[in-house]
């Protein structure tokens, strides 16, 4: 038992403390958080735009958007990254992290547009018609009738999408961006002791997952439509 504890202590020393190697992991953790949340936020915006364009009354626009969305869904993320960094923007001044965020955002945006589209579609058309008959504008009907139901429908899948985005960011190692996975590889290459840093990395990913779960719990609280909402909107 004493041997085991001593070997664990030794492992912690060379993996984390010697030459401040924990800094690699901390920076990697920061980079993964940065990549995940920024590309997810941007992805949500892109997803919303895609979703809006797909509901367009002009068939050319909605078809083009659907085609674009399918294009991004069908390309593997790694291929998308290669195309972005080494083909489309090979000579640009944008740095690799920005390009990676844009690529991830487009990929995530394509998925999110699908999530949003199906969530909005599930709301019964009759409810929108009823809201319009009550004198609401189309935007009001969307905001007060469609959106609350759509959010409720979309949230479970949307939550998973954040986790998927987070896991996909581990691909950036091949562009030499020091994210969490790459940090553990760097430490392994220095210590020739692969186990501890991999365990820490796994735990760190679980922590990010748990954090995002908590964030969504705050959003997810039930909210029912009340009569006062209409009255406020109609200015009564």
């Amino acid at each position, binding site marked *: 038992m004493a041997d085991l504890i001593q070997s664990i202590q030794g492992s912690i020393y*060379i993996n984390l403390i010697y030459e401040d190697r924990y800094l690699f992991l901390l920076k990697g953790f920061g980079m993964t958080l940065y990549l995940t949340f920024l590309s997810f936020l941007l992805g949500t915006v892109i997803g919303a735009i895609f979703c*809006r364009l797909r509901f367009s009354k*002009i068939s050319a626009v909605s078809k083009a958007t659907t085609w674009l969305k399918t294009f991004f869904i069908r390309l593997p993320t790694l291929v998308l990254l290669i195309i972005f960094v080494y083909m489309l923007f090979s000579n640009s*001044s944008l740095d690799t992290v920005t390009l990676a965020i844009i690529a991830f955002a487009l990929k995530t945006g394509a998925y999110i547009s699908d999530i949003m589209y199906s969530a909005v579609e599930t709301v019964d058309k009759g409810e929108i018609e009823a809201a319009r008959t009550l004198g609401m504008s189309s935007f009001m009907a969307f905001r007060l009738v469609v959106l609350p139901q759509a959010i409720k429908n979309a949230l479970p899948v949307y939550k998973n999408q954040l986790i998927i985005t987070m896991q996909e960011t581990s691909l950036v190692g091949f*562009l030499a961006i020091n994210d969490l996975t790459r940090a553990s590889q760097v430490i392994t290459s220095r210590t020739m002791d692969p186990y501890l840093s991999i365990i820490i990395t796994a735990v760190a990913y679980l922590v990010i997952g748990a954090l995002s779960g908590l964030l969504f719990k705050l959003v997810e609280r039930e909210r029912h439509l009340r009569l006062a909402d209409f009255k406020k909107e109609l200015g009564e």
Partner: protein
Amino acid sequence: MGKFRLRKLVVKEVFLLLFLCLMFTGCAKNQREPLTADNLTGRKVGVMIGYSSDYILSQPQYGLDIYRYDYYSDMTLALRFNRVDAIATEMDEAYVFCRMQPEFEIGLVVEEQLEYAYLFSADRPELLEQFNQFIRDFRETEEYADILRRVEASADAPFQAKKVENTVTTDRVLKVAAYDGWEPISYINNLTGEWEGGDVELITHFANSLGAKLELIDMSWDQMVIELTTGLVDLLLSPESLLMAKDLEMSGNIVMSDWVFLKDIVLIVNKEEN
């Protein structure tokens, strides 16, 4: 009225599409000044993860911005498209690299005559002792000098491999982890399907001195580390700088042999830059 609404819709949607396009603008080609020994600070240098060049150039006195890659192909792409200013390799690899890809050239020699050695599993001290004995004698032989000459000649023409027969006299097996496609160190000849390279020849001489059957296994760096620490292979046929020895041996999984080759670390750059 209908016409007006349609136009409004079109304008709105065109603007949304434009917004998507505008996100990707602001792309101008980067300008860089040539590389010299004095202005290394802050330069972006690509290295292979876990290689000696990674370890040595990561030290703070160089002040370099290190980009670590898994594969030579990724690193080459990064250099070609100016994602990095230079890539660092050992001189013998750089010969082959620049011969096969004439758009690159050796820009700067950063470190000279560093001692490179092999990595052994710490569980087999007797094998390490045998190897150290072998390499001390082998460095004096004509075969060793011949390998060095042919490695140097690989700057102009493909490496001239010399077939060394593996003579097996005992039932011992020497399991060696090696990289494929790493001319002139170790690679599988596509025509014959056999391992060739300077280090392969050297390790075959060592196997012959033991009378052991040589078994070369192709694997990635991550896999090599795990297989060596668990004792599935006896040594890694990837020479690493002895400057790494102190750190690598700290974990108690790995020991380094006596030096096998003397190598320089160089920076490879795009030709049009200098």
